[in-house]
């Protein structure tokens, strides 16, 4: 972590004012910590990242009963052991920056497991207030708590809360202020871990006080002693303490009585405390009804049904995505190719712009960027459904059912998360590999992420399935995603047996209960995930569209695009693609520019196949008529989209008729591709080299171009090989029509 103190970071208060009370919010993952903080802080919340890592950091500065409070959200962790990035961040913050108070958010429906972290937090000696969250659900389950018992036994304040219902929040803040007013009276109790442990701790304390007294000014005493006794290597290196500086005779007795592993001994001691406390303060009804989550999980996590259900869920996502978004994509296409192009031409004519700038604007920028924007509805719709699956708790199950497949690749289920992120965009997937513990897992996962079909590839699929597979577009796109996953498994196995030998470590996966995500949060997260596609369209896709236009029109005055610089480059590459069924200079040129970003493949095709000005047959319309047409056709798109939802679920009589009017680009590619070569082309786009931004991300994460080089080499070979198998195999089977 960078140098920072809890009391000065981003403080918006003047130096004369009393400093804000710094409250760290700690808890297990999925206990409603973020919801609680959002409910308390609202718009005062500042979202950022912990320094140097991609773990999200939330902070809020606000006033309660006249006292300024700074809330700092720590990453969700199960313990303060220094093994994962989240644990290290939380622990470093608590130990080194020492907040005034800790709010420990505890899941009331899962008290015993959550208490493990509580016990560790108490070792820090910082006053703790426990937010017993999801209290309403616990009560509904028939759980009863002895709140006074928890307070007495642990020496921490306890407030029942329900963050989703915003209940108990004022009481929680009142308790925070009450505790902070008299911190000495609210020190957590020192739990007794057994005579042997306590004797060892006392002896170690005596030794360190004698030989390294300065350490106690830097670290909380009990925490320091317990961690050193557990053999915390990271801490020992941090304080520059040699292994032999710790008197072995202190631990000898412990080891003889309890085995070699003192860390396991301490974990046992803490779990015993947690279990004992839970038994004392929590009363459950005798007859435990089968929970809804459990009932669903019996089916969803079934070893035979799990993967088919996952594949079926993904199929439904693609089908719904395509059916719902297509009318909006068509609407943008009509607008970009019609009124927008027309009025741009008129406007440039009015200012006396040279003819070639009109061509650059309409055939270059509008055709290039416009063809990418056409697919924005598809991308947003896809992100919406993926966000829904994440928020509902199903994606965690998907990771769980895929765990066996991940182990076959030499990875554990945790690697599935960066791979899942890769479906949105490969770049955050690459950065998310930072959350994996060992470098081998990081590199192997990063090498497989580009095989996950990112949103940028969707425009290519949508264009081609619209032209060649209009009757079952969702199924064809789904097959490409499944092909990506299957090849990731195959390549994972291959890498495991060649470059990355060894077994994946074991990992406990959290399965949160099923919840219905709120529509507002779904929309916010969808926007967060999808907006960078819009940013891309306005930045480097715009820039590349301009370059492509010049490359298609240079040398100046070139008659045919085939003879342009880009056409010539495409002609050089085309023979390599001939065995794959798309050995044309147009396809080759599009693939060359698509290296910048995959959606540029369609942007370039849009420019290459853009009709010349004279070829456009659109009748002239007034500005008012065009505005009216835009509004009317949008209404039609909404209606068609709604009809498509109905047809998705099989009530086809209500579905809209298939639109016969196809855009000029679709019509042109129908003349140059066959369904088989179109599918081979999509397979090639799915697999061929990662885009430039992924290359940069890999370079940053792994410190050299070496692993990008490996990804480039194997993906190029894989793309060529798979597309060749599809095309040549299809022809052998007589599908090459």
């Amino acid at each position, binding site marked *: 972590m960078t140098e920072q103190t809890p009391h000065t970071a981003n403080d918006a208060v003047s130096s004369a004012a009393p400093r804000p009370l710094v409250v760290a919010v700690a808890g297990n993952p999925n206990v409603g910590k973020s919801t609680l903080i959002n409910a308390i802080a609202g718009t005062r919340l500042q979202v950022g990242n912990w320094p140097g890592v991609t773990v999200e950091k939330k902070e809020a500065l606000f006033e309660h009963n006249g006292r300024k409070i700074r809330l700092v959200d720590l990453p969700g962790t199960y313990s303060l052991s220094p093994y994962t990035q989240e644990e290290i961040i939380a622990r470093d913050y608590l130990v080194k920056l020492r907040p005034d108070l800790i709010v420990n958010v505890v899941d009331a429906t899962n008290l015993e497991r959550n208490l493990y972290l509580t016990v560790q937090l108490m070792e820090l000696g910082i006053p703790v207030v426990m937010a017993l969250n999801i209290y309403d659900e616990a009560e509904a389950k028939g759980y009863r708590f002895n709140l006074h018992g928890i307070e007495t036994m642990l020496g921490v304040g306890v407030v029942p809360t329900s963050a989703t219902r915003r209940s108990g929040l004022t009481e929680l803040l009142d308790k925070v202020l009450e505790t902070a007013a008299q911190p000495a009276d609210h020190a957590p109790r020192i739990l007794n871990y057994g005579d042997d442990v306590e004797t060892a701790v006392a002896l170690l304390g005596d030794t360190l006080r004698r030989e390294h007294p300065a350490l106690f000014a830097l670290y909380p005493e009990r925490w320091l002693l317990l961690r050193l006794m557990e053999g915390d290597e990271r801490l020992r290196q941090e304080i520059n303490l040699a292994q032999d500086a710790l008197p072995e005779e202190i631990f000898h007795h412990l080891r003889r009585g309890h085995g070699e592993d003192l860390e396991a001994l301490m974990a046992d001691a803490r779990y015993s405390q947690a279990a004992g406390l839970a038994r004392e303060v929590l009363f459950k009804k005798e007859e435990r009804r089968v929970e809804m989550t459990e009932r669903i999980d019996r089916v969803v996590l079934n070893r035979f049904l799990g993967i088919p259900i996952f594949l079926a869920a993904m199929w439904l996502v693609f089908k719904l995505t395509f059916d719902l978004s297509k009318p909006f994509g068509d609407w943008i296409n009509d607008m970009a190719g019609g009124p927008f192009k027309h009025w741009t031409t008129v406007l440039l004519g009015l200012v006396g712009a040279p003819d070639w700038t009109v061509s650059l604007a309409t055939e270059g920028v509008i055709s290039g960027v416009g063809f990418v924007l056409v697919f924005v509805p598809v991308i947003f719709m896809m992100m919406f459904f993926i966000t829904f699956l994440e928020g509902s708790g199903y994606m965690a199950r998907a990771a769980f059912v895929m765990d066996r497949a991940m182990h076959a690749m030499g990875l554990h289920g945790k690697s599935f998360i960066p791979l899942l992120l890769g479906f949105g965009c490969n770049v955050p997937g690459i950065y998310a590999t930072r959350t994996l513990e060992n470098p081998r897992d990081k590199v192997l996962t990063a090498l497989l992420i580009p095989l996950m079909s990112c949103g940028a590839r969707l425009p290519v699929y949508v264009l081609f399935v619209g032209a060649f597979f209009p009757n079952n577009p969702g199924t064809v796109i789904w097959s490409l995603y499944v092909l990506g996953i299957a090849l990731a498994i195959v390549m994972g196995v291959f890498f495991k047996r060649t470059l990355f030998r060894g077994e994946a470590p074991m990992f406990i996966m959290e399965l949160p209960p099923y919840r219905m995500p709120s529509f507002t949060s779904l929309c916010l997260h969808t926007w967060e995930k999808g907006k960078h596609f819009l940013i891309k369209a306005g930045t480097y896709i715009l820039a590349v569209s301009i370059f492509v236009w010049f490359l298609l029109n240079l040398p100046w005055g070139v008659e045919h695009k085939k003879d342009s610089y880009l056409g010539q480059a495409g002609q050089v590459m085309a023979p390599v693609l001939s065995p794959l069924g798309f050995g044309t200079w147009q396809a080759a040129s599009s693939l060359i520019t698509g290296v910048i970003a995959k959606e540029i493949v369609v942007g370039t095709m849009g420019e290459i196949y853009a009709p010349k000005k004279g070829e456009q047959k659109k009748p002239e319309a007034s500005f008012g008529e065009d505005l009216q047409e835009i509004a009317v056709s949008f209404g039609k798109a909404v209606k068609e989209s709604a009809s498509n939802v109905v047809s998705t679920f099989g009530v086809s009589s209500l579905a809209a008729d298939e639109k016969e009017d196809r855009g000029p680009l679709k019509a042109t590619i129908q003349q140059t591709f066959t369904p088989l070569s179109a599918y081979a082309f999509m397979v090639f786009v799915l697999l061929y080299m990662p885009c430039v*931004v992924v290359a940069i991300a890999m370079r940053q994460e792994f410190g050299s171009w070496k692993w990008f080089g490996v990804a480039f080499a194997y993906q190029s070979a894989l793309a060529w090989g798979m597309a060749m198998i599809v095309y040549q195999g299809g022809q052998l089977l007589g599908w090459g029509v």
Partner: protein
Amino acid sequence: MGAFDIVLMIVILAGAAWLLYRSLWKKKGHCPGCDGGGCGDK
């Protein structure tokens, strides 16, 4: 093609190159999380 066309062409190409450099290399592309500052040191 006159001098004005050539100058305009150079300006447009330079603008595109700057946009490409800024968005691809200087900002290292865009990804969800960039706004949060997590990619600030990338």
